[in-house]
């Protein structure tokens, strides 16, 4: 048949009916979500039991109270979703839960090696922070009923991000840890990395700003080597943000965060405008800035030297890198098994090097599973971007998802010497409250955005 079917034929044709396959079925989605959450709990609990049996030969109860609190919080989030975001993506919470849970298992295993117990145990504190983080995520979901609400405050969130970035530089509350000045400390017990929250505010600001200004930024300029570069007068925002990233690098001495922010900005700029020229300019500027910094600042240069020659000073500056590599090698394909490796020998094995610790005990197979979980999570975020109806929502979900993926790349790429080692932490897994809160807020926002995608039409037409 070569003739096109008439309209009356096409509306009754099997073709269209076939494509209207996915009927909205919120109840099914939520039931799937609950089942997967329980599965994630089971994986986590099994991990803790394996550590107990391998190392201590008995099942401990140290993590029971905080563990139950975390599980309770996840269930609270699940029921909040049932109430206010019935059509949200059902995989987001289970994926984030299993990553958080595996992180706790590995942190707990290292606690056991360090013989830390009670409040000294990083795993207990991690679970408490997780509880807080998930409850914060639930609250965000309750408060923000429509993501367009965020669009209204584009410039306010931009200002907020700026304030958060400057906070650690203020005398009195700013504090330096492991060479990077990215912490604030209020009193003796409360310390926080405001840059983690700034990541989210920046995504919102970029999305709002780029949607408002994409026309101007898409204006074509000169064409060089087949790539259309933007006009000189439109370079302002790129230069401003490049300078901002560079000041993070120089003043806060944090290469990872600098790279993350700039990568986030650049990718969102590209998605909004479709101009490859921006990418070329941006990457060029960042490389230039990075290489210049490595010539001017010892700490950046050290990072570069360790990256290129980790065995030049294996007991000094290269120690962490070398121990991480030894750990991964010790794990091999199958891993040593939980409790049978020596992840505790690597510095920062519970935070920056959590992926190396996992790679040692769960092996290549375990690390692949974790990476696939991350990839699935990022993929869910990108899906929202593809399916979204409004540009702000699309761009925001892409920004959030990309920031997660880029962060995983920077962290594991640093450990495996794909790129220089930076101080970033693996989302959801690494020990550290600020990072957990910010990443669970991302989950809340993605839940909200995915809900908006699905609840518009009563029938979903598959592309």
């Amino acid at each position, binding site marked *: 048949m070569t003739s096109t079917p008439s309209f009356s034929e096409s509306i009754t044709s099997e073709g269209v009916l076939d494509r209207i396959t996915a009927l909205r079925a919120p109840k099914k989605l939520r039931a799937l979500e609950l089942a997967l959450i329980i599965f994630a709990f089971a994986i986590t609990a099994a991990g803790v039991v394996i550590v107990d049996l391998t190392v201590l030969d008995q099942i401990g109860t140290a993590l029971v109270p905080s563990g139950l609190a975390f599980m309770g919080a996840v269930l609270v989030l699940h029921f909040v979703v049932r109430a206010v975001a019935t059509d949200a993506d059902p995989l987001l919470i289970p994926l984030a839960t299993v990553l958080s849970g595996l992180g706790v298992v590995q942190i707990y295993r290292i606690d056991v090696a360090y013989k830390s117990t009670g409040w000294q145990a990083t795993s207990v504190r991690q679970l408490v922070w997780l509880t807080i983080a998930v409850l914060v995520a639930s609250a965000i979901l309750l408060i923000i009923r429509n993501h367009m609400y965020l669009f209204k405050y584009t410039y306010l969130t931009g200002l907020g991000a700026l304030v958060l970035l400057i906070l650690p530089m203020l005398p009195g509350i700013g504090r330096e840890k492991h060479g990077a000045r990215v912490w604030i400390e209020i009193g003796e017990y409360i310390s926080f990395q405001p840059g983690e929250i700034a990541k989210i505010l920046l995504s919102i600001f970029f999305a709002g700003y780029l949607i408002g200004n994409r026309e101007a930024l898409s204006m074509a300029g000169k064409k060089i080597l087949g790539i259309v570069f933007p006009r000189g007068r439109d370079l302002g925002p790129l230069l401003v943000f490049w300078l901002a990233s560079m000041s993070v690098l120089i003043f806060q001495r944090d290469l990872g965060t600098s790279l993350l922010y700039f990568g986030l900005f650049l990718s969102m700029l590209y998605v909004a405008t479709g101009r490859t020229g921006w990418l070329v300019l941006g990457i060029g500027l960042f490389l230039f800035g990075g290489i210049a910094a490595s010539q001017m600042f010892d700490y950046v240069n050290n990072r570069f030297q360790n990256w290129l020659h980790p065995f030049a000073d294996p007991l000094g500056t290269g120690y962490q890198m070398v121990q991480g590599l030894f750990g*991964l*090698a010790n794990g091999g394909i199958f891993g040593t098994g939980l409790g049978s490796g020596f992840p505790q020998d690597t510095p920062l094995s519970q935070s920056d090097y959590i992926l190396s610790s996992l*790679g040692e005990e769960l092996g290549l197979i375990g690390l692949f599973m974790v*990476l696939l979980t*991350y*990839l699935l999570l990022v993929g869910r975020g*990108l899906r929202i971007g593809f399916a979204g109806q409004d540009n702000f929502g699309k761009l925001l979900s892409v920004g959030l998802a990309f920031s997660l993926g880029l962060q995983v790349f920077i962290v594991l790429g640093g450990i*495996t010497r*794909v790129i220089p080692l930076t101080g970033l932490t693996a989302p959801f897994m690494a020990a550290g409250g600020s990072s957990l809160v910010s990443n669970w807020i991302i989950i809340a926002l993605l839940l909200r955005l995915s809900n908006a995608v699905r609840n518009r039409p009563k029938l979903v037409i598959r592309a």
Partner: protein
Amino acid sequence: MNKQLKILSRTIFFMFIVLFAAVTTIQVVQADELRANPLNQRTTMNAFRVERGPILAQGTPITQSLPSDDEFLFQRDYPYGPVYAPATGFFSHYQGLTGVESAMNNELSGIGNTQFITRFMRIITGEKPQGSAVELTLNKAVQETAYEAMQGYEGAVVAIDPRDGKILAMVSTPSFDPNALSSNDDLEIIENHRNLEQDPAKPLTNRAIAGDLYHPGSTYKLITAAAALESGKFKPDSEFENELAFTLPNSTAKIENFAQIKCGPDEKVTLETAIVLSCNVPIAEMATQMDENVIPNMAKAFGFEKDLNIPLPVTPSVAPIPMDKAEAAISSIGQLDVRTTPMQMAMVSAGIANGGAVMKPQLINQVIAPNLNVEKSFEAELLNQAVSAETAKQLTDMMVKGVNTAEGAAAMAKIDGVTVAGKTGTAENGLDSQGEPLPYTIWFTGFAPAENPTVAIAVVIEDGGGATHDFVGTSFEIPTYIGKQVMEAVLNQ
């Protein structure tokens, strides 16, 4: 916007592919290399978790793992203490591994590549991991005789079976007790290790293969003679003027014979007599009549300058090409820049004993899995045909006369009923800060029985035998007599 989204999604996917590739590179491709890195504490600690295989000599454990009540489950035990220490090395948490414990670590701890399948099966069956046994080529009687004979001296003994390169004895004294470094008490190990390391007698150094290289002195004349005979220009009866001293070309410096006497009563002296009586003057004169590179090349043919793993790494001996005739003359009697290990000199004798064929010395006889499967067994390996069988025969005759003539330098090595071949050496070590000569390094190397050799040996003693001999003990006595005892231990079996 969706077009850009697609490209961005692909970019993220690509970034993850890069991560998958990077992780695979480290955990699979480079894993073995990283595990073998000497800085890798994890390898040592893993080894502590398994029932490490024993090290055997003729079926008897000389190193074994005994059950212990602590977290490590096992404790390494060396029943013979210092006797086998140069071969076995030690196995400690904090100071790493040495010797066979290090060189055969993968086999002993069951983590070698050949054991991959077994290891994987263990993950499934939950069976406790166990390492393989490593049997050495060492002969208990020979090793123990050599160790006893060397008491009181700083030096080393190496005995090789010249026919296949099996190392029958490897002794270095003073030795150390590996038990002191292999307990499960870290502080004790660190303390003991520090004491051993600071001991001026350097007990941790394996002088047989890895100490400071020694001047070979007159034992090197075997190589000089081999080079001369192989060149075709000289024969055992080639004659040289019997002078009191040899003036070095373009110099006023002179080389004299030991004890500043002539080489025998005759007017002329043959090459053979020069070797038998160990005279410097005719040998130096002969060396100046050959090209400078001929003798170093012969040394290389016997294994000098070669990286050798038995599987413990043997420091390569050195024989650089002399700059001029004067240097060639001094080098020809094993001085100047010629330096060697006892293992290398034993290989020289073994090569001569085996018709010129130098067999690769080896210390591992076999590797036996816990299920008694032989995973690796000894295979003799030819290192090099250093000289022709005829040259080897001529050299053997000279060495036999060195032992069996009344005035021969190595006469103390004589064993009743057996023809022994031997050569002594006394190496000068320069002057001390007061301008007095430093004590000599004294040598014996040889083999027996000359007609059908079963053992080749090298003995080195530092500082002229040390304080008990007033630092002036001679090669004719101390090392030669020790060499005789060790060869007897082999022949008596």
